[in-house]
């Protein structure tokens, strides 16, 4: 792989790569994402490899092990082309038939999608209900790419946006485009990324940093890992463009210590980009220097909070700092540091490549673009999906998700893990967006959507979430540390039938004081799930307390 020293060299290389590829050639992609991996997709991949050799078909079919295809609970997933034929729950024994049929351009009927109620089959991705309601701009390429192969990313147009930014736009123009697109942070804050970039850019210090927050500690969110494992180059490209716009010389990718596969893919992407001249000194001969370092978390949720994360990169315990010391002005080692979520960065090449006008044509009035959602819980179809902002939740839960299994009725939809909230199913026509969902008390957070069925105990859910957060609190400030402990005690008592009449009043005080008085976002939002429970499911709480007292469960 030669070092590319100009935009023209990049396009020449891309042309060569494309010339050597035939879009009509049969191809097979086996998903090695987290869930498929857990269902032993490695054995499936090995079987395909062996089968292709056995049928002497190595030159007749392009075989790849890719990142997450998205339909996680129907794995191991295999997609055969041309035509994106989706095979589900594939076993190693199926490899022979799939290889043979793919070479002939035929479909293995018994392995395609079958609607659980109507029995109707759908072979092509564009017909499978789970996929057909999505808009897969960020994750659509993942099944076409070996994440360890930079040429695969170049073949789908990778790094063209970077070249455009470096050679056809000034840093100011790049910044203006991102502002015009109204790209809002996808990690949970929903803060306009362009404004954050501008603050960092305008800070007086010359040394600046950009950071990818790949921590993804939010419970039930798994799309950032899918993105970083399946297409790390897209995130990296966004980061380099951002660094150019902001004037940063050094970047950090902060991610989890417990995903070795993801770490390998990111490290390979960094190394390959550097070898090609897309990272490091004098990128593509533009004169722009930028390097990236990887950092791992040390196993605590609070280190996903941006100021805590920066302290962690410095080597200190991840104690958050109050928000009025803005990290875009004084972050890592007190230098201006711009932190954004994985998905936010992944949108940047699209915005620069296709333009802000294209981006704003998707989505709702104040929430533009698409959103990755991790759909899970009591739902028939679960996995990583991508839909335009503004999509009604009904579409996600029923059309994509297939509704609730086992004939049960849905009860509630939960967003945002331990710092989010839930809405009752009666509000399922609400659109997916930042502000509307926030007003309903269930801010979308990072996009982890959990469907809860009629048997779900809403007191237990609130208790469980507080139990999780209590262990993750850093312990510095009183309202968070003590407030959560007392809330947890009261909820446990209520759950176990020892609730007392004044418990709801104590909970109300605790939720209010913890929200107002805590130092950081963890403490401030820790009582949000409980608040949403009390807003929509108060009768369940009151009934449990009344039942407890009636049964003589009164303590003291």
């Amino acid at each position: 792989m030669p070092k590319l020293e100009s935009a023209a060299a990049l396009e020449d290389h891309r042309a060569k790569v494309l010339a050597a590829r035939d879009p009509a050639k049969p191809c097979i992609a086996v998903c090695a994402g987290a869930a498929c991996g857990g269902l032993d997709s490695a054995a499936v991949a090995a079987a395909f490899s062996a089968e292709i050799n056995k049928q002497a078909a190595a030159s007749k079919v392009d075989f790849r092990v890719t990142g997450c295809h998205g339909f996680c609970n129907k794995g191991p997933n295999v997609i055969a082309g041309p035509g994106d034929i989706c095979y589900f729950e594939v076993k190693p024994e199926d490899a022979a038939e799939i290889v043979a049929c793919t070479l002939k351009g035929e479909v293995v009927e018994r392995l395609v999608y079958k609607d659980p109620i109507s029995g109707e089959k759908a072979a092509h991705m564009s017909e499978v209900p789970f996929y057909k309601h999505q808009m897969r701009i960020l994750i659509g390429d993942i099944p076409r790419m070996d994440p360890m192969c930079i040429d695969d990313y170049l073949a789908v147009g990778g790094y063209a946006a970077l070249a455009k930014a470096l050679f056809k736009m000034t840093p100011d123009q790049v910044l203006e485009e991102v502002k015009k697109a109204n790209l809002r942070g996808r990690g949970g804050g929903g803060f306009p990324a362009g404004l954050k970039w501008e603050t960092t850019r305008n800070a007086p210090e010359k040394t600046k940093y950009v950071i990818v927050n790949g921590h993804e500690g939010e419970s039930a969110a798994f799309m950032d890992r899918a993105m970083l494992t399946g297409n790390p180059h897209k995130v990296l490209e966004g980061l380099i463009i951002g660094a150019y716009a902001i004037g940063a010389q050094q970047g950090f990718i902060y991610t989890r210590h417990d995903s070795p596969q993801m770490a390998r893919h990111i490290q390979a992407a960094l190394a390959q980009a550097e070898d090609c001249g897309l990272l490091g000194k004098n990128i593509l001969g533009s004169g722009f220097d930028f390097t990236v370092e990887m950092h791992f978390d040390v196993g605590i949720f609070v280190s996903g909070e941006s100021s805590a994360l920066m302290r962690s990169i410095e080597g200190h315990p991840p104690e958050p700092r109050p928000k009025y010391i803005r990290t875009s002005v004084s972050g890592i080692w007190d230098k201006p540091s711009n932190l954004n979520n994985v998905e936010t960065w992944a949108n940047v090449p699209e915005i620069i490549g296709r333009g802000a006008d294209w981006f704003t044509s998707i989505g709702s009035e104040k929430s533009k673009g698409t959103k990755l959602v991790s759909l899970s819980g009591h739902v028939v179809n679960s996995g990583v999906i991508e839909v335009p902002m503004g999509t009604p939740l009904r579409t996600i839960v029923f059309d994509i998700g297939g509704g609730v299994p086992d004939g049960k009725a849905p009860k509630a939809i939960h967003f945002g893990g331990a710092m989010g909230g839930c809405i009752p199913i009666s509000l399922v026509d609400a659109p997916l967006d930042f502000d509307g969902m926030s007003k309903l008390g269930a801010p979308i957070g990072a996009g982890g959507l959990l469907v809860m069925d009629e048997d779900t105990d809403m007191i237990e859910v609130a208790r469980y979430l507080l139990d999780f957060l209590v262990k993750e609190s850093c312990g510095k400030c009183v309202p968070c540390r003590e407030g959560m402990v007392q809330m947890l005690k009261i909820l446990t008592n209520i759950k176990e039938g020892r609730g007392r009449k004044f418990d709801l009043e104590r909970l109300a005080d605790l939720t209010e004081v913890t929200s107002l008085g805590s130092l950081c976002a963890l403490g401030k939002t820790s009582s949000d799930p409980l608040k949403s429970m009390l807003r929509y499911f108060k009768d369940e709480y009151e009934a449990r307390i009344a039942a407890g007292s009636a049964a003589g469960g009164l303590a003291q």
Partner: protein
Amino acid sequence: MTDTVLRIDGKEVAVPAGTTVLQAARQAGISIPTLCHHEKLEDYGGCRLCTVEVESRGRTNHVASCLYPVEKGLVVRTRTEKVDKIRRVIVEELMAHAPDAPELVRLAQEYGADRNRFEKEASFCVLCGLCVRYCAEVKQRHAVGFIENGPVREISFIPEIAASECWDCQECFAICPTSYAQAAYFLTEALAFPGRRKASATSA
């Protein structure tokens, strides 16, 4: 360098830039309760008792006044219904640990806190960090530190350092609001180096 002018409880106050709202209030003779604050130590913002309401550029927020820097035109209210509630509940939460701590008893009376509102906790340390920070910043001995996170956080004396440093110092005992630091030291001594003090006293 001109002073920054702000309003605290309706009173106009002028202080140098970089002053905290707490310092500005004290200068103006307005009292704001604190627990983890100490003039010799870096501002910590852990107890949150000094929370006040601030209004700036049309937005209202609740912040820890010991950390919040003054701004031109800032409007500060040190007593409001919400602020008082925050302080009351914080005192109630801390009294679940140390109901008899003199400072907490005094604050409970001022803010109408009920010492029995919350279920009692086992440890009477309120984790204000005064002992840890004093030993690190003023004495620079680091004889006592924090361990663990969240509600199981504790202070811990390092036996090897405590054995040689603490008996002749004891300065953190006096600043501890609940006497826990003293108790923790003596427990460490009893378990880790019993008889040492007696031995060196008799050999003196």
